[in-house]
């Protein structure tokens, strides 16, 4: 990257600068998987996130301009700004996030998995892309008020572990994102979700429905097409104790007080001990 050695802490500091209001939501654990100083991810130059609304607009200042003078052009924050949720598989999500920097969005990694177990390669791939892309996040890469692009791994729940395997899956909860109130306080009026398919991940629907109920407009871009209005449906057991009961059966909150997904192995069925 430069003469400065890239460490998990120095990379985290670049991705979560103190001046950005969205830095507190950057999940730290993926940064513990950073190794070395890889180059920019291959294929980044071919990614064009045209689906993302431009967070800046051009203002023409023609006051006192004579007919021979070109009007002054200035890039200013759009009145209608969006937060993005990029829910693409593994490395593709990180690369899309890096491409969004040029578009004026601050990528906020929410990856919460570690590089262990059979599926741990996903975290390794993501961490490598983030490490390589750290060089794009210099102090002046983005304005402090750049809107956020929350990055998720669409395959976070894939790969049910076999007995004895490390469970590297994870999921998102409402508590992993800013509230609608916080988003609005920083000029965000809506959210665009970038998803590879025509259906959104179940855990994400709880977050989107929450924002929708609080008055944020939700749009979705499937397969990179231009975003269209999307009305999230109330997910089953939204904010209910029934969901909590279901969570107790399979996907639980942490015993330590935080959040994450625990998926017990298939319940008992044969074998000796």
């Amino acid at each position, binding site marked *: 990257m430069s003469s400065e050695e890239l460490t*998990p*802490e120095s990379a*985290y*500091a670049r991705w979560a600068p*103190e001046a950005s209001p969205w830095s*507190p*939501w950057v*999940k*730290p*654990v993926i940064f*513990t998987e950073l190794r070395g100083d890889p180059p920019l991810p291959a294929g980044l130059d071919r990614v064009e996130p045209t689906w993302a609304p431009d967070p800046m607009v051009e203002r023409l200042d023609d006051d006192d301009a004579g007919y021979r003078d070109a009007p002054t052009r200035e890039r200013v924050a759009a009145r209608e700004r969006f937060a993005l949720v990029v829910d693409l598989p593994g490395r593709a999500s990180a690369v899309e996030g890096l491409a969004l920097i040029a578009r004026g969005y601050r990528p906020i990694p929410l990856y*919460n*998995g*570690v590089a*262990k*177990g059979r599926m741990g390669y996903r975290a390794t791939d993501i961490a490598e892309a983030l490490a390589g892309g750290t060089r794009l996040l210099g102090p002046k890469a983005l304005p402090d008020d750049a809107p956020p692009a929350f990055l998720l791994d669409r395959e976070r729940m894939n790969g049910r*572990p076999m*007995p*004895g*395997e*490390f*469970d*590297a*899956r*994870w999921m998102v909860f*409402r*508590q992993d*994102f*800013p*509230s609608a*109130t*916080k988003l609005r306080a920083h000029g965000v009026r809506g959210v665009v979700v970038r998803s590879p398919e025509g259906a959104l991940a179940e855990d994400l629907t709880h977050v989107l429905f929450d924002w929708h109920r609080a008055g944020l407009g939700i749009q979705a871009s499937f397969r990179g097409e231009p975003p269209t209005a999307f009305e999230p449906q109330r997910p089953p057991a939204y904010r*209910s*104790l029934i969901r*909590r009961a279901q969570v107790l059966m399979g996907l*639980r*909150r*942490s*015993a*330590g*007080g*935080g*959040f*994450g*997904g*625990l*998926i*017990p*192995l*298939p*319940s*008992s*069925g*044969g*074998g*000796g*001990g």
Partner: protein
Amino acid sequence: MVITAGPSLAPEDAARMRRRAIFECHKYDPQSGDVSVLAPFALRIDEATRRDLTRRAEALAREMITAERAIAADRRARRELALPLPLRGLLSSRAPGAEPPTLARYVRFDFHPTPDGWRISEANSDVPGGFGEAGGLARLMLPHYPQHAVAGDPSDALARSIVDRIGARRPVALVYATAFTDDRQVMLSIQDALAARGVESVPCGPDALTWTRGRACLEGRELGGVVRNYPAEWLPSLLWSTAWWRFYRGGRTPLANPPGPALISQNKRFPIACRRAGLDLPAWREHLPETRDPREVDVHSGDWVLKPALGRVGEDVGLPGVTPPREWASIVKSAARSPERWIAQRVFETVALETPQGAMYPCVGVFVVDGRAAGLYGRLGRTPLVAGDALEVAVLVDRAPVERGGRVARVV
């Protein structure tokens, strides 16, 4: 008791401390919704308060261990615990196979200041969290508070106990639910402390262990011991072929917090089981509010908190006047449907402290490792219900005998 909130760090110092907490103390969940959960200031107690809390916590731990044994031997008392079916027989002291030997026993009691003195609401005796916060976070805060001291480090105390018990010859497994990064941080704090004492340890899931003639092995190596941060009542959700029951019966490898006894006292119906067994626990009587079966009380009176017997981190706890009405109604309904899985605990008034972030309700967790107090874990709730969204705060002991100025409030 004297407990006060200290002045806030400068923003750049707070940001640096947050980063160091992440990368040096494995604090991987520093944000919950809009709340940055690491307080940028410390809770301060005086030395007399530290000694007082130590004495209280150690007395509670002694009584708890005596009561666990008595309840294990009393079938009627065990039935009060409404345990999951696969565990009922395994917790009996007459179940076949011996209980695994104890590697270490640790528990965290959360003390709340009230107008009548300290109160606890339960024991975190199965898989208490807060190891990194009690030790590492307090150490990071210490340079900003001259003339203060850290009140111990539970990770180090646990590591010391383990080395005293089994030496450093064999590796130790650190068993946790591997999909939880925040449980991983507990394990990594303990791993660091073991490494500092020359003990190799390996974080892994409970099903990664294999058992040979009752001895736990990991990747073909026999283990010296197992530290478990995987809740006791979740073990039966594993495949039978993983021999999860060895954690309860027939295992010969020493376990930290053997799940059988731990599950008895972690259960919120523990006081009801104690009563059924005819046990008198003076320290528990002094500190724990009256605890009843929901069928014995009028839950609508506003005098009772409802808690699930096997709930954790404040989940599904209903506190009249604090829990939103819809949620409270849902909790009441659940408690009415299965009252044997709930408790009603008499509401107690907690005292708010003035902090740099406004009035907050403190809770001081005291770790006890093998009978000795070993560190303080502070949390601050914005409501009297200190749950998962509470601030985590370093607790420091003020070594100066005089009360300092600033944002200081004497509680009692």
